[in-house]
């Protein structure tokens, strides 16, 4: 149901495309499709109606021009896309560092939104940028929230200021204040204050949040919200906005299949941007929020930029340049190189998640394939290569029957698995040779395991090209080359 927003958008636009010339009634029809799609994605009714109003007035303005254009459906699609981006907050914003350190960041939000996990992710992110963050455990309410923060802090090697044991003991306002003082003394340039989750309707706890805010005068108050939240998002966000106030929003659990309609509502109603998004269980599953990418995701356009960035991050420049040199100098692509690529792919996270960022990935057939994708395949392939000797990795031609048998036994696979890997590898090697010599055949689509072709393109040619490869359907190599 949840890919529904993009699926519905795509369906609505497909029927629009088939129409050619547009009448106001067609616009009304698509507007009503979009309306129910947005409601199903938990966008608040008031925001949906605002969106539809804007959409209609913008399309009305350009309706005459639209019908002159070759593809009016695409033009409307563009209007929807830019409206989404506008509401989602325009361009990404970064943390404002205080002129006089430490910069104080205060986290607030409902219970279970993911504040404590997020505190760790944010600290890790800021640390990676050369900062010296300090985590302050001011959630003294939930049993063992303090311990949780300490464990998280230890795992990312960020100190945690936790003078009180929590579990209802201690004054969170005092802890927050002392935490900032501690950071000043120990020269931490950023302080992240984790607070207890509270309901918007709980006046007493809202007052406490206000006191913490006044005690530490934060440079950024971040409101943490679960991407799966429903219609209550607006009411609760308003309660926090009026009660404590916040400067930006952090969206968590974006790795689920919720489309984040709440994100749209909250930014629209409070006028505050979404700054970060958390997308997984690991501390590194965290990044700046990009409104344009989110809009693309909602519209089912995929998230190519994120994919490209993750690829760049996963391939250290050494591996990439080594591969490039090899490629140019005409050396053979070996199984060792292949292994290095597999390692890099694993660093990028789950294949399903990665492939899900590709345009169209959430529609019909592709989605089904994605769901069936076996994450274990990568590990299996890796284990086969690791069971080979250096000689075999450099020159797979030496792989005779008894060697293959040994490799199969060593990796706990069947000889047929080894055979198929070697076959696919040889084929890929051949394709690379052809590409180098300018004969220009693209690797044939699905016959090669994703491990082989995706990373190849990424560091050297940029991710956009990879997509073209994926889309290539032609069985004729020459045609495929043209498409590429």
């Amino acid at each position, binding site marked *: 149901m949840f890919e529904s927003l993009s699926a519905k958008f795509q369906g609505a636009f497909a029927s629009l495309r088939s129409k050619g010339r547009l009448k106001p009634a067609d616009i009304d029809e698509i507007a009503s499709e979009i309306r129910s799609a947005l409601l199903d994605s938990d966008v608040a009714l008031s925001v949906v109606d605002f969106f539809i109003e804007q959409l209609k007035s913008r399309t009305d303005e350009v309706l005459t021009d639209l019908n002159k254009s070759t593809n009016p459906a695409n033009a409307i699609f563009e209007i929807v896309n830019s409206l989404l981006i506008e509401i989602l907050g325009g361009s990404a914003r970064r943390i404002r560092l205080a002129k006089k350190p430490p910069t104080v960041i205060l986290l607030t939000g409902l*219970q279970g939104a993911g504040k404590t996990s997020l505190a760790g992710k944010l600290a890790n992110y800021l640390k990676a940028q050369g900062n010296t963050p300090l985590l302050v455990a001011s959630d003294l309410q939930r049993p063992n929230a303090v311990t949780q923060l300490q464990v998280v802090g230890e795992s990312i090697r960020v100190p945690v200021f936790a003078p009180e044991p929590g579990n209802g003991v201690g004054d969170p306002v005092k802890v927050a204040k002392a935490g900032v003082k501690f950071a000043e003394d120990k020269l931490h340039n950023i302080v992240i204050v984790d607070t207890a989750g509270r309901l918007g309707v709980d006046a007493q706890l809202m007052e406490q949040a206000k006191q913490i805010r006044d005690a530490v005068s934060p440079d950024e108050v971040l409101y943490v919200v679960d991407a*799966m939240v429903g*219609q209550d*998002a607006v009411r609760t966000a308003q309660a926090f906005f009026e009660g404590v106030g916040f400067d930006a929003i952090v969206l968590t659990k974006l790795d*689920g299949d919720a489309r984040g309609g709440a994100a749209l509502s909250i930014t629209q109603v409070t006028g505050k941007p979404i700054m970060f998004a958390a997308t997984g269980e690991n501390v590194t599953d965290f990044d700046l929020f990009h409104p344009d990418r989110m809009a693309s995701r909602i519209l089912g356009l995929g998230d190519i930029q994120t994919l490209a960035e993750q690829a760049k991050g996963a391939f250290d420049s050494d591996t990439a340049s080594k591969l490039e040199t090899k490629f140019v100098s005409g050396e053979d692509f070996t199984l060792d190189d292949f292994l290095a690529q597999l390692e890099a792919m694993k660093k990028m996270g789950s294949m399903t998640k990665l492939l899900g960022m590709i345009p169209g990935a959430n529609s019909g057939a592709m989605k089904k394939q994605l769901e069936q994708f076996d994450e274990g395949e990568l590990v299996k392939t890796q284990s086969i290569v690791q069971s080979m000797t250096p000689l075999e990795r450099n020159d797979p031609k030496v792989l005779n029957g008894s060697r293959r048998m040994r490799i199969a036994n060593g990796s706990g696979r069947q000889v047929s698995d080894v055979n198929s890997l070697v076959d696919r590898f040889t084929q890929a090697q051949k394709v690379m040779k052809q590409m180098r010599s300018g004969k220009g055949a693209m690797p044939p689509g699905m016959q090669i395991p994703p491990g082989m072709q995706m990373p190849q393109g990424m560091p050297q040619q940029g991710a956009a090209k990879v997509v073209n490869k994926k889309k290539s359907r032609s069985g004729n190599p020459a045609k495929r080359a043209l498409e590429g």
Partner: protein
Amino acid sequence: MALFSKLLQKIRGGSTSAGDWQEFEEALIASDLGAKSAAEIIELAKRSKSDEIDTAITNALSAWLSNANRELPFNSDRPTTVLIVGVNGTGKTTSTAKLISFLKQNKHSVLVAAADTFRAAAVEQLATWGSRLEVDVVTGPANGDPASVAFEAATKAKAANIDYLIIDTAGRLHTKSGLMDELGKIRRVIEKVLPVDEVLLVVDATTGQNGIVQAKIFMESVAVTGLILTKMDGSAKGGIALAIERECGIPIKFIGTGESAADLEAFDPERYLNGLFS
């Protein structure tokens, strides 16, 4: 129903405006019942005679509730096992604590398995509750195999002939197939020792339409038998639970209404429906 009285008055007076219907739709949408159900109710209201609207809507909503038994099962000859599952942050551990307190009040003996070995300090969180509520908590090493913790607890519960064994699991997004498989494994491993009698899916009242997909996928991997609807003390109406009941036929069994161990109530359909649109 209180919600509709205003609208009903106007209909009877023959003066419903577009604005009133708009307000009516807003209340329906705001409950997280879903756009489709909301549209159905509006249709129904427009179709019904003015003095029958109230009954018609109440009947329609009640018909969406399932007929299933809403009580926890109890076996007199062996421990009754209850598995607690759900996505991250819905309040599984807190609900586990509330359930312990609920069962202890009814003079049952309880053993708890802290099978959330993933989230930092989740085991400690449950252990703290355990000592407050005076029940034994079976724990394993951090990042250890949750199934083995569950197995150990099931073995213990069986040997000591405890009334109820409650197994708290790590929060997992339904989209992570590996983690969903792990949940299936936990269930299968418990079943080597004891049948699993109840699987409670913990759903947060603030959850939007995504809740339906959550329920469907959890049903597939662990055969959910009931819902605990948490955080009903906030401003969210929790209409998603009704949407889940309607769509998947899983009965709501408990309502969580606060942070203390006593804040758990058996589901009361009438009260719930009345609160939906207030």
